[in-house]
C-alpha cells in the first residue's frame, strides 16, 4: 500500500494513499469527534462534527477529505471548537437523557462527543425547552428503534443500503420532523427488514438497541454453528449462559458481518430442554442413567454387531476432530466402512462430480474473491436465505459494477440484485447450461488456449452438445433463447466469471450431471484456476466440508483417500493398528434400506435428525424400529432420537474446542464459551469412551489438538493445518506442510485429476424421475427459510426466530390458487405419491404457475414425508427438489 506523509497537529504521521483524514487520524490514535462516519461505509459528511482546519482549505469535514502528501491538518482550535459545540448542542437538544438505563451507556458515541466538546448547562437547558416524544418501534423480536435517541447520522440507512442491499429503512419527512422509518411507516416487523441487526451493531447511540442485551463477562472467539460460510464470532457469556454474539471484524469469511441466525440464534444453548444426562430405554421407556451404565451397555451391545451389521451417521454439525474420531471408531473398532452423514443429502454430487472433472470436490475459490468477480452465475442457490453473509459479497460485486445472472425456478430475493434472471423449470439445469455452452461454441466465445492446454475429453463433450439446439433448450427449460444467449455471452466474455451453486443443482436424480454441466461451463471458458472465477458449491452446514474431509463418508478415509486403495489402506492399517475393510460402505440412503431389510442391526448416530431430513422419510420411520440397538448422541431430543435405545447428551458448539472447515475449505478454530451443560460431554470424548470400553487402542486423546496431530500425519491436504497455525483466521486446504500458506483457489497450475487436466464430460438430458401428470399436476420443490435452519432443532428454540417465521407456508402461484379455488392462508392438503399433509398456503408469485414450494424445517409439517427418494445413480442423493404433487381443499 502506497503511503503519504501528512502532519496532524504538528505531528508528522503517515497514512494510506486514498484514505480520508479522519481515518488517518484514527489509525494514528488521534480522536476526531464524529457521529456519521463508519469505516465500512462511504463518507457522508453530514454531522459536521469532524471538521478540521487544513492549510490552504480552511475548515472542512475530515471524513470527506482525502489525505495528500504534505497536508497540514489542525484538529482543534477555538474556531473548530465553536462549530462543534453548536452542532453538538443542536444534535443533543432533543435527545432522551436516560443514559444510566440505556444499553448503550458507556458505548455511546454521543456521550463521547459531548464529553469531548463540553456542553454549557445554560445553553443546554435553553435548547431543551420543548421535547416531542416519538413512539418507539418495539415490533422486532430482537431490537428496538427509538427515534427519541436518534441523531440522524444515517449509519443505519447506509448500512441497509450500501452493505445489505435491503433498503428496509430510509429518512422520512423533512426538517425537524425527519425520522428514520420504513416504507409507509410500517412497524419493522412488517417491513422489508431481514433482522440481520447490522444497523443495530453500527448505531452509534441508543436509537437502535438489542433487546435482552447483557454485557458479557467474558467472550470466546469462535465460529458460528449455522451455515457453511464460517463466520467468525465473539460468543459472550455470563456465568454458565451464553448472552451475546458479535461479529469478528478479523474473520476472513465475514469481516464482522452476521445474519439473523448467526447474531440472534444462540438461545438454544441455554435452553432448558437440553439433554443433560444419558437416557436408556428400559421396558420401552427412556429413563435417566449414569454415564458408566450407558457407556458399558453401548460397549457391550456394539461388540455384538461388528462389521456389516453396524452403521454410523456422523455429523456435519460436529467438529473435524469428532468426525475423525467417529470414522476411526467405525472403521478400526467396528470393522466397517458403513459411515456417512447428511452431506449425502446435500452435496454428494459435488463431491463425486467435481472429483471426476477436477479431481477435487470442493469450492474452488474463496469467499472474499466473489466481490471482484465481473460476472456471477448463481444457479440453484437461494443465497440471501441460506448463506446470507456470503450473499453480501455477491451484492458487493454488483455494486462494484459486476453482473449477476440468477438461474432459479423461483423468483428468489437474490433476483432483485440481478441484471438477468433465467427462470428455468425444475430439473432442466443440464439443458439450460448445455444451451449456454452451445451459444458459446456457436459464437466462438470459448477459450481455445485453455481448452487445449488444461483440459481433456473435449471432443466427446462437443459431440454431446449436438443434442442441445436452442429450440429444444427453450422448449425444455422455458427460458427464452434471447435471455439464454445474453447469459452465455456475459459469462463467457465478461471475465472473471464465477459460478455459485447449491442444492438446486445437487438434489436431483441427475445431480451429478448437473454438477458436471457446471464444471464443463467453467472449463469451456477458462473460468477456473484463477482469482474470482471457479465452480463454487456453497456448503450448507457449518462443518459439512470438514465432515467430508475427515472421511465421514463410506468410500474414503480422511482427505478423500480411497478405502479400496491397497496402499492407502496399508497406511491406515499401520497407523491405527487395526484390521480395516477394503469394501466401500453403504451410503446414508442405502443404510436406511439395509436397516429395513434387517441387514444392519446397530446404528450409532451423532448429531443428525434423519427422520425429518431424509427424503421420503416414511422409509426411515419404518426402518428404525427394526434396529436391535440404536444410539443417538445429540444436544436435544429429536424426532429421530425418539427411536433410540440409548441417548447420550452432547456438548454444543459453545462448550467445546475443535475446528470447523467452512465452505471455502478454511479450517477455523472453535473455542468454548461456557462449560458443558449438565453432564453433557463433547462428542469426541463420548466416542473415545465407547472405543476404550470395547478394548480398542488409539482412543486415548486428552485434547482435540492431539486428534488434529493425528489428522495432520494421515491426511495430506491437512498436513500443515495445526492448532498453532489456525489460531488467527484459519487456513485453507490443501496445506500439505507447516511451511505452506494454504490455498485460496484450487487448480491454478494443474487439476488434481490423474492426468492433471480438467476433464470435459459429455452429457445428455435426463428428466426428473417425476413429472406433472393428471393425478399430480404440480411440482413440489423444497427451499429454506432465512429464519430457520434444517430441522430447526436449534432455531426452533429461539423465540425471536419463531416469531419471525412461526411455521410452514406452502408457496402457491396466484394462477394455481385460482385453479384449485384456494385462498391465502387457507389450510390445504398436499399429496405426493408418498403421502400427504395439511399445510397453510401463501399465495405469491415467487413460484411460477405449476410449481409449489415448502421448506423442511418444521416437525408438524413433515415435508420429507412427501419428497421423492429417486436416487442419483452415482452420488446416491435423493431428488428432494422435484416431486409431482396435488393440492386438495380441506373440508371444514
Amino acid at each position: 500500500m502506497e503511503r503519504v506523509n501528512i502532519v496532524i497537529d504538528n505531528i508528522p504521521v503517515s497514512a494510506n494513499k486514498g484514505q480520508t483524514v479522519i481515518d488517518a487520524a484514527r489509525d494514528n490514535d488521534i480522536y476526531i469527534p464524529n457521529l456519521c462516519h463508519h469505516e465500512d461505509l462511504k463518507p457522508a459528511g453530514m454531522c459536521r462534527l469532524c471538521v478540521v482546519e487544513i492549510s490552504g482549505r480552511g475548515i472542512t469535514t475530515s471524513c470527506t477529505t482525502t489525505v495528500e502528501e504534505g497536508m497540514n491538518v489542525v484538529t482543534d482550535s477555538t474556531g473548530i471548537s465553536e462549530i462543534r459545540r453548536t452542532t453538538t448542542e443542536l444534535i443533543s437538544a432533543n435527545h432522551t437523557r436516560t443514559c444510566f438505563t440505556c444499553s448503550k451507556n458507556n458505548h455511546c458515541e454521543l456521550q463521547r462527543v459531548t464529553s469531548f466538546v463540553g456542553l454549557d448547562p445554560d445553553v443546554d437547558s435553553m435548547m431543551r425547552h420543548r421535547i416531542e416524544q416519538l413512539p418507539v418501534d418495539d415490533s422486532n423480536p430482537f431490537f428496538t428503534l427509538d427515534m427519541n435517541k436518534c441523531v440522524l447520522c444515517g449509519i443505519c440507512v447506509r448500512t441497509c443500503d450500501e452493505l445489505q442491499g435491503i433498503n428496509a429503512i430510509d429518512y422520512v419527512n423533512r426538517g425537524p420532523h425527519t425520522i428514520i422509518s420504513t416504507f409507509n411507516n410500517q412497524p419493522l416487523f412488517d417491513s422489508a427488514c431481514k433482522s440481520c441487526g447490522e444497523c443495530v451493531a453500527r448505531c452509534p447511540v441508543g436509537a437502535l438497541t438489542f433487546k435482552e442485551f447483557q454485557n458479557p463477562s467474558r467472550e470466546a472467539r469462535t465460529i458460528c454453528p449455522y451455515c457453511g460460510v464460517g463466520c467468525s464470532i465473539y460468543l459472550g457469556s455470563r456465568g454458565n449462559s451464553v448472552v451475546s454474539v458479535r461479529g469478528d471484524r478479523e474473520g476472513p469469511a465475514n469481516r464482522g458481518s452476521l445474519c439473523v441466525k448467526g447474531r440472534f440464534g444462540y438461545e438454544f444453548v441455554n435452553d432448558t430442554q437440553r439433554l443433560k444426562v444419558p437416557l436408556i430405554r428400559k421396558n420401552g421407556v427412556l429413563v435417566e442413567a449414569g454415564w458408566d451404565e450407558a457407556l458399558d451397555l453401548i460397549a457391550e451391545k456394539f461388540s455384538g454387531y461388528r462389521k456389516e451389521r453396524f452403521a454410523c451417521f456422523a455429523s456435519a454439525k460436529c467438529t473435524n476432530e469428532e468426525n475423525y474420531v467417529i470414522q476411526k471408531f467405525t472403521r478400526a473398532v467396528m470393522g466397517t466402512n458403513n459411515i456417512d452423514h447428511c452431506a449425502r443429502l446435500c452435496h454428494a454430487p459435488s463431491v463425486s462430480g467435481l472429483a471426476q472433472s477436477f479431481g477435487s470436490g470442493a469450492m474452488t475459490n474463496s469467499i472474499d474473491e466473489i466481490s471482484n468477480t465481473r460476472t456471477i452465475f448463481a444457479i440453484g442457490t437461494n443465497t440471501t436465505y441460506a448463506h446470507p453473509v456470503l450473499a453480501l459479497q455477491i451484492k458487493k460485486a454488483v455494486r462494484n459494477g459486476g453482473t449477476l445472472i440468477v438461474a432459479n425456478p423461483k423468483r428468489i430475493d437474490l433476483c432483485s440484485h440481478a441484471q438477468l434472471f433465467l427462470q428455468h423449470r425444475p430439473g432442466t439445469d443440464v439443458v439450460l447450461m448445455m444451451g449456454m455452452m452451445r451459444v458459446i461454441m456457436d459464437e466462438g466465445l470459448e477459450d481455445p488456449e485453455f481448452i487445449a492446454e488444461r483440459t481433456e475429453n473435449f471432443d466427446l463433450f462437443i459431440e454431446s452438445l449436438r443434442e442441445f439446439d436452442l429450440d429444444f433448450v427453450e422448449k425444455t427449460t422455458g427460458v427464452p433463447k434471447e435471455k439464454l444467449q445474453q447469459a452465455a455471452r456475459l459469462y463467457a466474455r465478461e471475465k472473471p466469471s464465477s459460478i455459485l451453486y447449491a442444492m438446486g443443482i445437487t438434489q436431483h436424480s441427475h445431480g451429478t450431471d448437473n454438477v458436471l454441466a457446471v464444471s464443463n461451463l467453467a472449463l469451456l471458458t477458462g473460468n477456473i484456476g484463477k482469482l474470482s472465477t471457479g465452480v463454487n458449491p456453497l456448503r450448507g452446514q457449518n462443518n459439512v466440508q470438514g465432515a467430508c474431509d475427515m472421511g465421514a463418508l463410506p468410500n474414503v478415509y480422511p482427505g478423500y483417500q480411497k478405502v479400496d486403495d491397497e496402499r492407502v489402506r496399508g497406511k491406515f492399517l499401520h497407523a491405527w493398528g487395526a484390521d480395516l475393510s477394503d469394501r466401500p460402505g453403504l451410503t446414508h440412503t442405502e443404510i436406511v434400506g439395509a436397516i429395513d431389510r434387517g441387514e444392519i442391526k446397530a446404528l450409532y448416530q451423532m448429531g443428525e435428525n434423519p427422520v425429518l431430513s431424509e427424503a421420503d422419510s416414511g422409509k426411515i420411520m419404518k426402518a428404525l424400529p427394526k434396529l436391535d440397538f440404536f444410539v443417538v448422541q445429540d444436544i436435544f431430543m429429536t424426532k429421530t432420537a425418539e427411536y433410540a435405545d440409548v441417548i447420550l447428551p452432547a456438548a454444543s458448539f459453545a462448550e467445546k474446542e475443535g475446528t470447523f472447515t467452512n465452505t471455502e475449505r478454511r479450517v477455523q478454530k472453535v473455542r468454548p464459551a461456557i462449560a458443558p451443560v449438565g453432564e453433557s460431554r463433547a462428542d469426541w470424548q463420548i466416542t473415545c469412551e465407547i472405543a476404550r470400553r470395547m478394548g480398542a487402542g488409539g482412543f486415548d486423546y486428552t485434547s482435540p489438538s492431539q486428534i488434529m496431530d493425528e489428522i495432520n500425519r494421515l491426511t495430506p491436504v491437512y498436513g500443515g493445518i495445526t492448532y498453532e497455525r489456525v489460531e488467527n483466521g484459519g487456513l485453507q486446504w490443501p496445506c500439505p506442510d507447516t511451511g505452506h500458506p494454504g490455498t485460496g483457489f484450487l487448480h491454478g497450475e494443474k487439476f488434481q485429476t490423474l492426468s492433471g487436466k480438467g476433464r470435459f464430460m459429455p452429457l445428455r438430458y435426463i428428466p426428473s424421475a417425476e413429472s406433472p401428470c393428471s393425478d399430480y399436476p404440480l411440482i413440489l420443490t423444497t427451499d429454506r427459510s432465512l429464519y430457520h435452519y434444517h430441522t430447526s432443532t436449534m432455531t426452533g428454540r429461539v423465540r425471536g426466530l419463531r416469531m419471525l417465521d412461526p411455521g410452514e407456508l406452502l408457496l402457491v402461484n396466484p394462477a394455481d390458487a385460482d385453479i384449485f379455488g384456494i385462498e391465502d392462508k387457507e389450510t390445504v392438503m398436499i399429496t405426493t405419491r408418498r403421502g400427504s399433509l395439511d399445510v397453510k398456503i401463501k399465495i405469491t408469485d415467487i413460484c411460477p404457475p405449476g410449481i409449489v414450494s415448502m421448506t423442511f424445517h418444521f416437525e408438524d409439517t413433515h415435508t420429507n414425508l412427501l419428497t421423492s427418494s429417486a436416487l442419483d445413480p452415482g452420488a446416491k442423493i435423493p431428488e428432494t427438489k422435484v416431486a409431482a404433487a396435488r393440492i386438495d381443499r380441506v373440508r371444514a
Partner: protein
Amino acid sequence: MDDKFVELFQDFRAKEEELIPLLQHVQNVEGFISETAMKRIASFLNIPESKVFSVATFYAQFRFAPIGKKHIMLCRGTACHVKNAPKILDEIENQINIKAGETREDLEYSLETVACIGACSLAPCIVINDEVKANLTTKAVKKIFRDDRKKNG
C-alpha cells in the same frame, strides 16, 4: 399486470430520475399517492420502496390520503396572516366540520393550510380546487359554503 398503473406509467421510461414527475403525475390523476402506487412506482423504477416513501414524504406537495371533491388550501402567509387568516380558518373549520389537514368522511371537502400562494394583494385568500377566493371575510366564507350546500341540495 394490466391495470391502471400500466396506463399511468405509459409516458415514462422507467428512469430513476423520473421519480418525482411520476409521483406528481399519480397525484394529479388519483388525487393522492396510495401505498399501492408507491410500491408500483418502486418496482417500475427498480428502486427500493423505502426510497420512494422517503422522497415522497420529503416534499410538502405530496398527499398520502384521498382529498375531498373540493380541496381547500388556506393561505397562512404573512400578508394573509395580518389580514385575519386565522379567523378565516376557524370559520372554514366551523363550516365544514373538519380541522386543517383532514378530509371529511363523505369526501366532500378536505382542508389544508399552505405557507403562501403568491396572491398577497388579494389577502386573505383561499383556493378551492383551482379557483381563488380573494379578500375574504368570515361573512364571505359563510356565503361560499351556504351556496355550496344549496347547490348540493
